[in-house]
């Protein structure tokens, strides 16, 4: 076991997989010699060589398209798209190709591809370095979408993703790379040091895809969250005094509906949170599922807290970010609603 930041845990996952399987290779813009703009691949080119940790042309469609071809050959490429906001030039390759090879060939072809990409706000990245596009990917049949919230899960989920035979979108909450962040931007930044989930096994282990985790047990309200918002939701429960049960979904597709339903049936109340814009966000799917499966147990309307339906405004980061104050207000509203 070692204490790791989230970026170190991801680095460790890639290190383990590069060491274990010659078919695993990394590629992306600035990932090789430089070690990635967020340092997630630091040292890996030195250790495994420029052939296995490839710097690429600045071409997201090219990176993903090439990785699909490599996957068809039988390699397990792990590509980095420098910011999730830059995934759009690769969208055709992801949505029309990676996601459908297996289906259109009735299982004769597939490509085991993992696309790692930092998402979300909190670093003053403006509208082109802050987006949360998960719903675009979860809407594409054939892609799996994974979002870790801490170093331990990040490593185990990334290993599971690399070993999975379906194309994976692995969204990394960039504000969590160096330390947990609960949305209290006016407080000093914290590091992962001493955090219980920063103790990470050095070797190979998996965190299974499709299994949520209860990040904070509680009885009053169920909060469905992933990525950075898990930490925000826990802080909101603390600040508001509402005994919320915070579920860290970890994988959006496939989704662990059983854990969600069990919790909502227990609390009778539900709040869904994400950084992404509200309308047609992944939260809408969660709300639909909860009402379908828990309707007779619900004692209050399901609340959603999300990014406003605007591009991410550079200077108004903290007016935009759905922080603990907004989430806390939704917890109180859901907890106090009388049927």
């Amino acid at each position: 076991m070692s204490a790791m930041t989230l970026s170190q845990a991801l680095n460790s996952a890639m290190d383990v997989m590069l060491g274990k399987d010659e078919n695993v290779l990394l590629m992306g813009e600035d990932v090789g010699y430089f070690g990635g703009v967020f340092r997630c691949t630091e040292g890996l080119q030195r250790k495994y060589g420029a052939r296995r940790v490839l710097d690429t042309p600045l071409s997201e469609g090219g990176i993903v398209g090439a990785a699909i071809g490599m996957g068809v050959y039988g390699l397990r490429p792990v590509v980095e798209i420098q910011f999730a906001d830059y995934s759009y030039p690769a969208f055709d390759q992801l949505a029309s190709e990676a996601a459908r090879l297996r289906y259109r060939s009735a299982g004769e072809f597939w490509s085991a591809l993992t696309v790692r990409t930092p998402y979300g706000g909190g670093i003053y990245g403006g509208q082109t370095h802050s987006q949360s596009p998960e719903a675009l990917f979860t809407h594409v049949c054939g892609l799996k979408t994974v979002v870790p919230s801490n170093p331990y899960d990040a490593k185990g989920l990334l290993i599971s993703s690399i070993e999975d035979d379906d194309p994976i979108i692995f969204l990394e909450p960039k504000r969590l790379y160096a330390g947990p962040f609960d949305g209290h931007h006016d407080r000093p930044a914290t590091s992962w040091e001493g955090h219980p989930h920063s103790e990470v096994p050095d070797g190979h282990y998996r965190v299974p895809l499709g299994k949520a985790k209860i990040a904070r047990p509680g009885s009053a309200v169920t909060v469905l969250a992933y990525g950075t918002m898990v930490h925000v939701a826990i802080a909101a429960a603390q600040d508001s005094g509402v005994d919320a049960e915070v579920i860290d979904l970890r994988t959006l597709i496939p989704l662990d509906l059983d854990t969600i339903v069990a919790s909502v049936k227990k609390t009778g109340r539900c709040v869904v949170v994400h950084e992404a814009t509200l309308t047609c966000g992944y939260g809408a799917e969660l709300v639909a599922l909860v009402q379908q499966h828990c309707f007779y147990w619900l004692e209050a309307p399901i609340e959603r807290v999300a990014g406003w339906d605007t591009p991410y405004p550079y200077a108004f980061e903290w007016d935009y970010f759905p922080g603990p104050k907004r989430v806390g207000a939704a917890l109180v509203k859901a907890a106090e609603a009388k049927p």
Partner: protein
Amino acid sequence: MNEAKPIHSLQPAKPALSLHIPEPKFRPGQKVDFSGLRIAKPGEVRRPPIDVAPQEIRDLADAIIRVMDDEGGAVGPWDPQLSAEEMRRALRYMMTTRAYDDRMLRAQRQGKTSFYIKCTGEEAIGVGQSMALAPGDMMFPTYRQPGLLIAREWSLYDMACQCFANAGDRMKGRQLPVLYSVPQEGFFTISGNLATQFIQAVGWAMASAYRGDSRIAAGWIGDGATAEGDFHYALTFAAVYRAPVILNVVNNQWAISTFQGFAGGENATFADRAIGYGLPGLRVDGNDLLAVIAVTRWAAERARANLGATLIEFVTYRAAAHSTSDDPSRYRPADEWEHWPLGDPIPRLKQHLIACGEWSEARHTQLGAEVEDEVQSAAKKAEALGVLGKGEQHPAETMFEDVYREMPPHLKRQREEFRALK
């Protein structure tokens, strides 16, 4: 792994195939030596007539058009014959651009803004091309051509307000610093995404031709971003419709940490890309202000004469970091720029003006002090109004505006919700 894949019956070829991985010439700690770089002598590249057939000037895509020689002379057919007054203005704009960059970088270090991008070493391109284009022409820049605005004598105060996202920022705090937008000067709103503007410049030019207008467009892109699909869309559309557009590739050698070999620069020049599309491609010394103006005028005349688009590669060097978010000494020798064989555009033009008898060390020092004052006073005035998160800001609720022309009901509801939180 839940499925085994039936492909690992390797077919042992003789010899076994291997993957080529480009490597930059020099890495940190290595001695920089550009003596092997093939560079045409100033004045040696021919200047064809503007109606030349693209296939007759394929050699110009591999040459480097240069005008200023090492002794301060201006030689050869590409000499744009600028007046001394024009050259002094160009010098002033380049020095202003550099002083502004230095001032804003300091402001970033002081926490007055979160981010900044310099264009150090590349000033001749923005400044020269802006001077060569006509008012009314439309420019689709990247974030590394502030000289386009400075050469139009656009307000430094306005630019600084954008970087500080204060109440004077016409972008209302919505964009990262340096992503300016100045329609008054034909300066298109800069995207934080790369390459997207390149094909849009072609579209604007197509529209101008469609309407029988006389204005042309120009687009800029970096060497790295030529690997994006948008670059190839642009060349295809520009060639197919003979769009009146100048397509500029600023080859500053580095895309963050990635050297231009990863954009295909090892195998062909970026100007060579033009050849496959049937476009004229020119390769130019981007640190030679006179050459920059000359080739831009050539391409502009060609576009205005309905002869279509030109691709120009400007060979230059990104002297500063990509942005305040990276440290270039981690991936290239810290002194690489000092060895760059095409030098620094500012001293080069200064030397030429002195050789012409139109400038002196004393006047240069005085000009340096003048532009420093001008930049200081603009930056101070902008800082006094507000810096990121402090002082006078636009109201945060303006973030709900301009998503659509008219605010739809769901955004009005969200704005109400936002107001109630305050």
